[in-house]
C-alpha cells in the first residue's frame, strides 16, 4: 500500500456530541421524501402530481439541465405533498408509504456480467436507476458528465466533518457489496478507483486490507477527495476527477445487484443538543422528526442536515436529502454573551487561536452553539485562514480579489481548488463569511462556463 498521506493543515473542531459507534434501527417512517431544496445546481422538473401512485424507484423529478440527473422515489405509496418554496422552487416531494411497497424493476447485473458488460451500458443502468447524481465531478461536485472518462475516481469511506457515519458502522456486514460497487466504479473509470480512509477510522478494520489505496492522516477535511486531489495531482488534466462517498457506492452496488432502487441508509445524529448521539439505520429520505424524536434536548435548537461546516439548516418538518448522511443539532445561541466575556481568561472557551486559556489546557470537547461570537469587521490580516486552508489558498486575499471583481486573479489563487470546507469562515475573528463568498464565486463561474 502507498504510505499514508499526511496533512499538516486543517483543523479538528472540538465539538461535543460525537455519535457513539452503535447502530440503532429506527422503525419504518410513515412517509419519506425526495428533497430538492438543498440540491446544488439542479433545476428540478417535476414528474409527478399530488395523489399519484408511485413505486420505489419511480421518477419524481429530473434536472432540466441534464436528463441523466434523475431523482427517484425512496418509497412506494402515494405522493401526499409536493412542497414549493419561494418563486415556486421545488422543495420536496413527499410519499406516504404503503404497507406493502411496490418496486420498479431494473435490470440486474451479476458478478459474472460485470466482466463482460460495456461501460456505456453500465452508465445507462446507473442513470436509469436514478443514482447517477451520487457520482460527482470535481471541482464543482455537480453530477459527473457521463460522456467523458474521468482521470480518476476517488472513493472516500469516511468523512471527518462533525459528525458523519463511521465506516466500521455502515460497512458492517456489507463488505461484499462494497467490493462489487468498487468493481462497478473501476469499469466506469477504466482504471481502479482510489479508495481513501483516514487512519484513525481504519484501525482494527481487517477487511479494509486490499481495498484501501490511500490512507490519509490529518485534521478535517483530510478525507475530502478535493484535498487528496490537490495533494496528489501532477497536472491540471486531473482537475476533473470524479468522487463518490463510501455509502453511496453501496447504494449503486445494491441497485445493480438487486435490480431495485435501494432505500436503506445509515445516518448519524450528533451535536451538543443531541441527548443520544448515535448512528441510526433508517430509510433514504426519512423525516427529521423520526430521527430526533426523544433524542435531542428541548429548547431553541438548530437542525443541520449534513455536517456542521457544509450542512444546511433544515426545517423541523423537512426530510433528509439524498446526499445527507448526518443530522447535527446545535443550540441556537441567540442570546447576548456573558458580562465582559472578552476580557476573561476563557478557560472553557473553545478557540482555534491561542487567545483563550483553554488553548493551553489540552484537549476537550465543547458544547458550541450557532452564535457568531462577535461583530462583523474588516479583515485584519490575522493570517488564521491561510493557516487552516487544506489546499493552500490564501482565503483572505482570494476573498478580496472576489470582492474587487477580479475573477481571473481569484482563479489564479486556486478558487477552483477550494473544497468548501468552511474552516476559513470558522476561524475568522472578523466574522467574515469567506466560505459563502468563495462558494458564490465558484457557482457563478460554473454557471457562466456551462
Amino acid at each position, binding site marked *: 500500500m502507498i504510505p499514508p498521506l499526511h496533512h499538516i493543515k486543517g483543523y479538528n473542531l472540538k465539538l461535543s456530541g460525537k455519535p457513539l459507534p452503535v447502530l440503532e434501527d429506527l422503525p419504518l417512517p410513515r412517509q419519506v421524501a425526495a428533497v430538492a431544496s438543498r440540491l446544488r445546481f439542479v433545476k428540478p422538473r417535476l414528474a409527478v402530481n399530488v395523489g399519484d401512485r408511485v413505486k420505489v424507484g419511480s421518477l419524481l423529478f429530473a434536472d432540466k439541465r441534464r436528463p441523466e440527473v434523475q431523482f427517484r422515489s425512496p418509497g412506494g405509496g402515494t405522493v401526499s405533498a409536493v412542497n414549493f418554496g419561494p418563486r415556486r422552487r421545488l422543495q420536496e416531494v413527499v410519499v406516504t408509504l404503503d404497507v406493502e411497497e411496490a418496486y420498479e424493476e431494473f435490470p440486474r447485473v451479476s458478478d459474472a456480467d460485470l466482466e463482460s458488460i460495456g461501460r456505456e451500458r453500465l452508465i445507462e443502468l446507473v442513470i436509469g436507476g436514478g443514482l447517477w447524481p451520487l457520482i460527482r465531478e470535481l471541482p464543482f461536485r455537480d453530477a459527473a458528465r457521463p460522456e467523458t472518462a474521468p482521470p480518476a475516481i476517488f472513493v472516500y469511506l469516511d468523512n471527518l466533518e462533525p459528525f458523519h457515519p463511521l465506516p466500521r458502522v455502515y460497512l458492517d456486514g456489507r463488505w461484499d457489496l462494497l467490493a462489487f460497487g468498487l468493481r462497478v466504479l473501476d469499469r466506469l473509470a477504466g482504471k481502479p478507483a482510489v479508495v481513501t480512509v483516514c487512519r484513525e477510522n481504519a484501525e482494527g478494520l481487517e477487511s479494509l486490507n486490499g481495498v484501501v489505496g490511500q490512507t490519509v492522516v490529518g485534521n478535517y477535511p483530510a478525507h475530502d477527495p478535493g484535498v487528496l486531489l490537490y495533494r496528489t495531482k501532477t*497536472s*491540471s488534466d486531473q*482537475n476533473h476527477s470524479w468522487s463518490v462517498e463510501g455509502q453511496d457506492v453501496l447504494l449503486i452496488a445494491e441497485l445493480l445487484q438487486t435490480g431495485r432502487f435501494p432505500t436503506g441508509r445509515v445516518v448519524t445524529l450528533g451535536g451538543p443538543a443531541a441527548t443520544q448521539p448515535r448512528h441510526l439505520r433508517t430509510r433514504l429520505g426519512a423525516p427529521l422528526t423520526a430521527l430526533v424524536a426523544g433524542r435531542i434536548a428541548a429548547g431553541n435548537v*438548530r437542525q*443541520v442536515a449534513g455536517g*456542521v*461546516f*457544509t*450542512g*444546511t*439548516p433544515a426545517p423541523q418538518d423537512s426530510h433528509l436529502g439524498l446526499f445527507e448522511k448526518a443530522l*447535527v443539532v*446545535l443550540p441556537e*445561541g*441567540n*442570546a*447576548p*454573551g*456573558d*458580562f*465582559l466575556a*472578552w*476580557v476573561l481568561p476563557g478557560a472553557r472557551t473553545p*478557540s*482555534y*487561536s*491561542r*487567545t*483563550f486559556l483553554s488553548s493551553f489546557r489540552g484537549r476537550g470537547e465543547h458544547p*458550541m*452553539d*450557532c452564535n*457568531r*461570537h*462577535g*461583530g*462583523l469587521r*474588516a479583515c*485584519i*490580516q*490575522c*493570517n488564521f485562514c491561510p493557516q487552516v486552508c487544506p489546499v493552500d489558498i*490564501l482565503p483572505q*486575499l482570494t476573498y478580496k480579489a472576489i470582492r474587487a471583481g477580479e475573477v481571473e486573479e481569484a*482563479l*489564479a*489563487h*486556486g478558487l*477552483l*481548488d477550494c473544497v468548501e470546507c468552511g474552516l476559513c*469562515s*470558522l*476561524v*475568522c*475573528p*472578523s*466574522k467574515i*463569511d469567506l*466560505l*459563502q463568498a468563495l462558494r458564490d464565486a465558484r457557482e457563478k463561474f460554473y454557471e457562466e462556463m456551462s
Partner: protein
Amino acid sequence: MNPVKHVFDSQRHHFTKGGRFEKFYFVFENIESVFFAPAAVTSTGPHVRDSLDVKRFMFLVIAALLPHYAFGIFNVGYQSNLASGLPLDFWAMVWVGLKAVVPMVVVTYAVGYVWEALFATVRKHEISEGLFVTCALFPLTLPPTQPLWQVALGISFGIVIGKEIFGGTGRNFLNPALTGRAFLYFAYPAQTSGEAVWTLLAAGGTAAVDAFSGATPLAVAQATDSGSVVQAWADAGYSLAKLFFGLYPDAIGASCTFLCIVGALFLITVGVADYRIICGDILGFLAAATLLNLFASPTSSPYLGLNPFYHLMVGGAAFGIAYMTTDPVSAPAMPGARWVYGFMIGMLTVLIRVFNPAFPEGIGIVILFMNCFAPLLDEIQLTARLKKRIPNVQ
C-alpha cells in the same frame, strides 16, 4: 438581572429604528458590545464560529501595553523630579506622572473615539476596535511635555488620514498611531525634538538642575566624537541597566526594553503578533549594526563601532519592534514578505540612527516607509507562490 444589562435594555428603544437617536445606533451597539457580546447567529455554514473576535484580539494588545503605562507614569515623574531637583519620593513621582499622562490618554481616546464614531455613523458600520489600540499606542510615543491640543491634532491626523479615509481599520496601509506621531514630528518639531522636550519640569521650572542630562541615549550616541558610545552613556549617567529598563528621558512609555520583551513574548504566545516580523526586525538591526562595526575605524564616528545589541536596547527600537511593526494590517500578509519587511525595518533604522543627524531615532519613520512597501513585498511572494500551483481553470 445584571444592572448594566438593565440600563442597555431600558435605553435601547431610543437607538433602534424610529427612536430619537436612531442615527447613533452604532455608538450604542459599540458601547453595549463592550459589556455583552451580540446575540447574532450564523445563517449559513459553518454553523459554529470561533470564540475569538476582533475585540479580544485588540484587547490583548492593550493588555500588553498596560505595563508600559505603569512604567511610563513612573518614569515621567522620576525624570521630572530628577531634573527639578525634587526628592525622589515614589508616590510623589507617580502623582507627577499621572498628572502628565492621564490627560494625554483621555484626550487621545476622546478625540479618537469621536472621529471613529463619526465615520462609523456616516458609513453605517460598527466601530472597529483597532481604534482602541491606536489610541493606546499613540500617547506612549509622545514626549511628556506635548501640549494637549497637539495631542488632539496628532491623533486626529492619525485616525482620519492614516486610517479612516481608506475605509477604517483593516483597510489602512499605514500604522495610524505612527502616522499621527510623524505628523506631530514634522508639524511641530519644537515640541517633539531636541533635548528639552523629553523631561517634564516641575511647575515654574525653566531649566533642569545642572547634574541632570536631558539628552536621550540616542542623542548622546549621535553626539559622541571620540572614545566609545558606551563610555559616553556612562558619562551621561546611563548605565546599561538603566538603558535596559528604560530609566532615561524619552517618550512616555516606549523606553523600557524589558517590558517590550515581555510584551512581545506575550503577543507571540497568544498568536496576536507574528514572530516572523519580530525576528526579522531583530536580525535586521543586528545585521546592519554588525556591518557598520566592520567599517568602524579609529577615525570614524564611534557610533559605527557600537555593539549591535545596544542598538536594540535604546530608544524606541524595542517598542517599535514589539508593537508597531507587528500591526498585522499595515504589515505584509505573506510569511516570507514579513521576514523581509522586518529585516528592512531593522536595517534602515540603524542606518538612519547612525548616518542621519536630523533623526536621532528613525524607527517610526522607517516603519511608515516600509508600510508603503508591504504590498509590493506581498506581491513578489504571492506571484512566486502562485506560479507553483497547478492551474485549475476549467
